[in-house]
């Protein structure tokens, strides 16, 4: 089930002179143009199910599977790679702005928001430049330990 933004992405890109569509192997740093990527609900759990089938095929083809009993079969990086092949694993956002009535990530692809700052901005119609600057400022004041 693709979201409405994804379906209208050509129309949206037309409106922005200085933006390009995100490509799979794009390097994010020092981009001259803004890169837009459109994600929808199907890029979340459903993409994980697809990636699981990719890993399953590899698991079957690897031959004797009885020797894997109780052991770890896949690593997290293998999972990440599999997600990438099914198109469900782009770069991890540093900041996630939620526009809507509730502070909830609504199924944003789980693999990508592990350490993302999630900020609730209120309803879409009250979007203001000032609140965006404030959100970015709050983000710069944050200090992460990443578990340490």
């Amino acid at each position, binding site marked *: *089930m693709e979201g409405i933004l994804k379906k209208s992405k050509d129309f949206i890109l037309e409106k922005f002179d200085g933006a390009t569509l995100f490509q799979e192997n794009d390097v994010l740093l020092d981009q001259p143009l803004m890169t837009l990527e459109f994600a929808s*609900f199907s890029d*979340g*759990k*459903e993409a*994980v*199910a697809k*990636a*699981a*089938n990719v*890993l*399953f*095929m*590899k*698991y*079957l*083809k*690897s*031959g*004797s*599977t*009885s*020797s*894997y*009993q109780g052991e*770890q*079969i*896949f*690593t*997290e*990086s*293998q*999972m990440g790679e599999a997600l990438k092949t099914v198109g469900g694993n782009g770069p991890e956002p540093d900041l996630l702005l939620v526009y*809507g*009535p*509730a*502070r*909830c*990530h*609504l*199924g944003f692809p*789980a*693999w990508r*928001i*592990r*350490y*993302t*700052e*999630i*900020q*609730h901005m209120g309803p879409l119609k009250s979007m203001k430049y000032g609140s965006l600057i404030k959100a970015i400022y709050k983000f710069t004041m*944050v200090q*992460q330990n*990443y*578990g*340490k």
Partner: protein
Amino acid sequence: MVTSVPNKVGNYSSTGNGVHKPFFDDITNFLRRFLFRVLSVGPIPTHLAFIMDGNRRYAKKQNLKEGEGHKAGYLALMSLLRYCYELGIKYVTIYAFSIENFKRRPDEVQSLMDLMLEKMEALLMEESIVNQYGIRVCFIGNLRLLSEPVRAAAEKVMKVTSNNSKAMLLVCVAYTASNEIVHAVEGSCKEKEKEFRLCNLNNNVMDDVKEGEKVNGMVVHDIQDFYEDTSVESQGLKQGKGCNGTPYHACESFESNWDQVLTSKASKSGEVSEGFRNLRQEVPLIKLVDIEKHMYMAVAPDPDMLIRSSGESRLSNFLLWQTSNCQLYSPAALWPEIGLSQLVWAILKFQQSHSYLEKKMKQL
């Protein structure tokens, strides 16, 4: 016996000094129960999750020794759990220890493990909270990463409380959401592979019963031979495994071996090859429900609200899969400072957004 002394209105914490003010206790308990009854007029969450952040900052702020922050955090947790179960919240999940926390200094990790062991043993006592409220405790995470005494204590607590059914406490230790997702995918793979093997075994048996040329037992024997051959070959491949990258290359070259084995077997017995030619077409697919079934958190419904203390607004690899329709709330108070007022405020926020999130959940 533990005595309770109220320090803020409506809050109580345990101290060992034996002071007991029954009248004041009764008044605050009564007020709190009345407050809960008023709150219960609106929807109450079924499942609350907590990220207990800020113990170390609290210790620094109060000029305490480092480990004391965690002990103060434990007391805050016990009070909060009592309020939750009093309010009728059936499931409470807490983020006790992340896999990422193993990166901390070894002495800090050890003191946290010691604290957990001590508190797990306390849970097994007669007068502990689990018996008072009929709580079933589940430890969620990759428990094999824990040291033997901690893991054994966790298993014991789970076993002893397995028959309690009034409420549930899910303690996430050695947990990250990414580890949970990979583990669930692994579980689904193992399950589907078993299904696949049995399905093909049955198919071949059925084929031969139809043709009447081979006895059932003989066909099964041939299949077992086949799997033994492939296991010998894959053993060799496994020994050649280096870092993470190599297994895939090994698999690609093995694909051609698989074909060779198939064709060699085919020349041996025509009936068996019929079944194996159909192998690839009948591979069962992993569906979303299979993955959901194998999640560590499958023992409880998805949380309705996730509360992270200390005002931080990230999930830090906690319950990423389960929070699609979960409201996130970040009170500024550090974890040991969390009390009744933050809980009440959280419930009110939940009630505010409840109908919107319910609607969202039904849409998907």
